[in-house]
């Protein structure tokens, strides 16, 4: 099964506030996790996201497109990145989620991918 592991972590008001050595450390930890999932053949995709201040929200209402700045909710934790992994079952996905460095400061949301029938894509 495929699982999307969404990494929600506390967002600092300013990315520059992170001391460079801490940032380097975080990068190294994510690299290690990425390498492990790749080596085990589980990695389908994985990306980090720019902070939410760079986000744009798009809605279509009554046929017109509304574009607003930022995300809707003011939450403490924001989506900062994701991994799309191939796992045997939920237990394996949970074990991998627990290894993501962000799990120690934030929350990893584990979502199974909904395998829609092929006809949907046709």
């Amino acid at each position: 099964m495929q699982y999307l592991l969404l990494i929600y972590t506390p967002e600092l008001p300013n990315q520059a506030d992170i001391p460079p050595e801490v940032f380097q450390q975080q990068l190294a930890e994510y690299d290690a996790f990425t390498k492990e999932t790749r080596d085990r053949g589980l990695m389908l995709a994985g990306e980090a996201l720019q902070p939410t201040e760079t986000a744009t929200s798009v809605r279509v209402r009554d046929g017109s497109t509304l574009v607003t700045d930022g995300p809707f909710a003011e939450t403490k934790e924001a989506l900062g990145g994701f991994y799309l992994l191939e796992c045997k079952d939920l237990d394996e996905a949970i074990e991998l989620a627990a290894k993501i460095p962000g799990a120690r400061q934030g929350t990893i949301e584990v979502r199974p991918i909904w395998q829609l029938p092929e006809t949907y894509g046709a």
Partner: protein
Amino acid sequence: MTGDFDRAEEAVQDAFVTALERWPVDGLPANPGAWITTTARNRAIDHLRRDRRLVEKAELLGRETAMASDADDVERLVEARDEMTPLQDDRLRLIFTCCHPALPADARVALTLRTLGGLTTPEIARAFLVPEPTLAQRLVRAKRKIRDAGIPYRVPPDHLLADRLDGVLRVLYLVFNEGYAASRGDALVRQELCAEAIRLARVLVTLMPDEPEALGLLALMLLHDARRDARKAEDGSLVLLEDQERGRWDRARIAEGAALVDRALRMGRPGAYQLQAAIAALHDEAATPSDTDWPQIVALYAALASLEPSPIVELNRAVAIAMAEGPAAGLDRIDALAATGSLSEYPYLHSSRADLLRRLGRRDDAAAAYRRALELTENAAERRFLTGRLAEVTRLS
């Protein structure tokens, strides 16, 4: 994956329900392991016979079985149907799947009772005072999550087992407590919940005989359940442990529970259920309240507090200290606990404090504490008890 769960659910229920029906009536068989294996084989053969695609083979093998007294021949028969897995394993897998931590807690309880217990959906709904459609919906959602989220249908591997077994035991204990100490609901339905929790724990212990905490939980439930009849007066009001008619305690349950605690503790891996069961055994084995080994109970609560620190454990420890060393020593402890504020809404903090104040002759303080306990108590029997004590301390003052 779903296929596994649904098929197992169906296959397991027969043998399992038989165990649940027979054991309470016949008592635990002398060798439950062998009994289960035999039943599982018999059931497997039944299924084999029912399976149309295999009718011929089953008849052939059935004739062989009739002639064969050797267990190996039966084994071969079971293996004849390739998708057939040993039912014993199925049952264990089912328990772990129903109690998976990714399911909401209330759904775990409902699913366990529905799938592994003998309770119907309306019975579970009544026991938990939930409208039937709500409960049915809860079950449907849980089964859907098992399928769509890929919750594995298996006994967890070793590195997860301790954690997951803990979750299973918690579900069973919750079911038992809902039946034993429920603050609401109908007495008969609640009794059924206790019986169900005990039956499931028995099965778990049979399937995992080397898990001391599983033994401990079964022992704990038996040792509490032994006092069930003596715990309620004719009018339904609650009778405190020290006032209970000990002749009405169920001696067979006590003996079974105490033996289980001993067996568990000898494994050398103490846990919260084992320690609580050991405490319950000390109460149950005292011929009169004054024979109770309070210093030993204080020591067990101390061990429990270091293993699983909680204000509730501290409260019980304080009450035990009051019994071992006198009400003043206990009251000091409870007052210190009350000062932290963590149990301010917990009725037993106030009723225990009230009792010690009463023993110390501080009637006005006791009355105030009884009133506070009454504000927080919904259970009718407990309310009657507290009202009686309140009247006692206000009567002659």
